[in-house]
């Protein structure tokens, strides 16, 4: 049980960290760009919300394997396949939770508008400087919401992990898989305990996010 809890938290933490790093600049570009390509990229980012995890899991299973597009790179790392590994799960989780990180941050950047950045430019701030010292602090509510949602979404992930994980204790066996196995093997009591904690956790996460949003709205109406 403990290895699964630690592994689940580890996966969610690593995924969220990676998502902050790639999600923030991507959200910035999506919020500022007036090009039609931004709409196309926005759509691609939103796909995991509507796609069944099995579709995503299936493509990942093929893509991560020895016949996938990255197959020629794998031997350099001494690997045959990225499936059945923690790194494979991280790749899957980053793609699966991308919209949950990008969309709140993009919305936060949009709300800022042009004015603060124009002021920054007039004060001779470089675009990079304006991004870090004006845009990011103003959008921190969005970054926070995105991080919490991505973290929680990764903890609740099941379909993708089931399809590419291979259920290896300590490496790919996360909590949602434990629940699935408990139900499959008729250990309903154990399934009930884990599920109940998951419900409590999800409730707490969503409640905290909503309370923070309410407070930020009062501070910046």
């Amino acid at each position, binding site marked *: 049980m403990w290895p699964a809890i630690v592994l689940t938290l580890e996966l969610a933490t690593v995924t969220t960290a990676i998502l902050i790093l790639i999600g923030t600049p991507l959200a910035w570009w999506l919020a500022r760009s007036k090009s039609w390509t931004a709409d196309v990229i926005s759509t691609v980012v939103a796909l995991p919300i509507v796609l069944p995890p099995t579709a995503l899991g*299936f493509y990942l*299973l*093929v893509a*991560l*394997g*020895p*016949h996938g597009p990255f197959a020629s790179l794998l031997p350099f790392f001494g690997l*045959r*396949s990225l*499936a*059945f590994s923690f790194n494979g799960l991280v790749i899957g989780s980053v793609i699966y939770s991308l919209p949950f990180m990008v969309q709140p941050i993009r919305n936060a950047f949009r709300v800022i508008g042009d004015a603060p950045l124009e002021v920054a430019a007039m004060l001779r701030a470089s675009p990079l400087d304006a991004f870090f010292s004006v845009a990011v602090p103003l959008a921190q509510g969005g970054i926070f919401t995105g991080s919490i949602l991505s973290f929680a979404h990764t903890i609740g992930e099941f379909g993708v992990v*089931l*399809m*590419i994980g*291979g*259920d*290896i204790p300590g490496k790919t066996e996360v909590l949602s898989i434990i629940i*699935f*196995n408990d*139900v*499959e*093997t*008729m250990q*309903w009591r154990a399934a009930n305990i884990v599920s109940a904690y998951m419900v409590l956790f999800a409730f707490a996460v969503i409640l905290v996010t909503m309370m923070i949003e309410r407070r930020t709205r009062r501070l910046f109406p």
Partner: protein
Amino acid sequence: MMANFMGYSFTETIRRCIGLCIKLLTFALVGIFILTSSPAWARNVLVAVAANFMAPAHKIAAAFHSKTGYGVELSFGSSGQFYAQIKQGAPFEVFLSADAARPQKAEADGLAVPGSVFTYAIGKLVLWSANAQLVDPHGAILRSGTFTHIANCNPDSAPYGTAGIQTLKALGLYNQIDPKIVTAANLSQAYQFIASGNAELGFVALSQVMNNSKGSKWIVPQTLYSPIIQDAVLLKTGAKDPGARAFLAFLKSKTAIKIIHSYGYSTPGG
């Protein structure tokens, strides 16, 4: 744009849409009534089938339909999932399990018609690889250990998974191969892991790769694992359905047994 869609006002459009919906619904209801009242379209028998039996079940259902006229609706999944669903009131009438334990438990729990359990197939385990050169006809690859991942079903929920572990233990290789095992939730997934090349080889049911000319396989001798007895049972929901009873009777017929054998299963009679 919404306000004058095709020249109609918005409210007019809504009114026409609702009118059309009511007409379509009436047609559909009349259609359903006509279809269900004719004997050729008698209600389908709902059958829950363990995933390993997918291919033969399709063939048997087709043969059963052309012989009796009863339609069959097949659902595929793992026996463990099906048991959980049946316990929660799923509408299945017949349960073709991958093991003997769950039909027995269904009977003990009062979910099945007493005395209706019988063995419809005895499964065979095979070590399979999508690579045509990898698995030799004697399974020596297991001893050589020249692979990184070997797929096997979850031994706690899938009988074929138990058989895989028993085989490794009987060969005295379990401890050295255990770190290389990737566990699949069911046989279909074990097949996916191997067919996609993510696992070089793995244990699946012979029925899954029987008619597959690609890859390489070793049919594991049945002395290495305890027999995979697959039992069928008539569930309480199907107790009064002549179609469900006819399906179970058909499953014991020569026609069905011939199909079952053609997929590499044996039956209690041989």
